[in-house]
């Protein structure tokens, strides 16, 4: 990987604040406008640079970045250790939206175990790093969370697409 970047990725930016860094990936922006409607003091498209990390308390910046519906805006703690504790509620933390950025900072986690959570009447959630073998292809997945279908009804197999909510999840849940 590394230098093998596409031209669009050259426009990617990062903005470092005191405790957090915000990442900007313009190619992913769908102009939902949630960032500047929520926090124009920080996200002002008519200013250069358009992100001012001093414009508001960083908690507010985190809240606003989490509202972005795509990976256009993501964030991380500058203190790397704190990033492993960030939960799913922070939808736009880099580890959920841009795992390629997160794996650069947590290279040593490779050997740690994979967490497999079976959700009641739902998918199996796998968290960590692994090789995925599917349809004869092998892919390396680093520090990701992936939900696999357990009900057999998903249209995007092997992944969960939420279809289990529309059917009665097959009985016999007890192991």
């Amino acid at each position, binding site marked *: 990987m590394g230098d093998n970047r596409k031209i669009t990725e050259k426009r990617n930016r990062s903005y470092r604040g005191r405790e957090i860094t915000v990442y900007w990936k313009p190619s992913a922006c769908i102009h939902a406008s949630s960032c500047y409607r929520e926090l124009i003091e920080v996200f002002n498209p008519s200013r250069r640079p358009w992100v001012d990390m001093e414009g508001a308390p960083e908690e507010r910046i985190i809240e606003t970045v989490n509202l972005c519906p795509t990976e256009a805006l993501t964030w991380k703690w500058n203190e790397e250790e704190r990033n492993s504790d960030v939960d799913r509620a922070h939808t736009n933390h880099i580890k959920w939206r841009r795992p390629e950025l997160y794996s650069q900072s947590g290279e040593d986690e*490779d*050997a*740690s*175990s*994979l*967490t*497999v*959570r*079976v*959700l*009641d009447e739902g998918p*199996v959630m*796998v968290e*960590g*790093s*692994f*090789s*995925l*073998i*599917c*349809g004869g292809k092998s892919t390396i997945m680093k520090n990701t969370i992936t939900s*696999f*279908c*357990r*009900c*057999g*009804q998903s249209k995007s*197999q*092997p992944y969960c697409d939420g279809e289990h909510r529309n059917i009665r*999840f*097959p009985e*016999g*849940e*007890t*192991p």
Partner: protein
Amino acid sequence: MDRNKTVIEVIDGGPLKISGSICIVEKQGGKPEDKREVYLCRCGKSASKPYCDGSHNS
């Protein structure tokens, strides 16, 4: 092959095979257990969920 490597294999028409160093929680709120290899049901028909019991063949 790396001993620590965790592999998830989507078996065509069959279960999800996970091997390596695994920590599995079988039910929400359940106790995490360490395992080396599991086969998880993907078709919804198994009587011993979350594990595969071969029911996908029937």
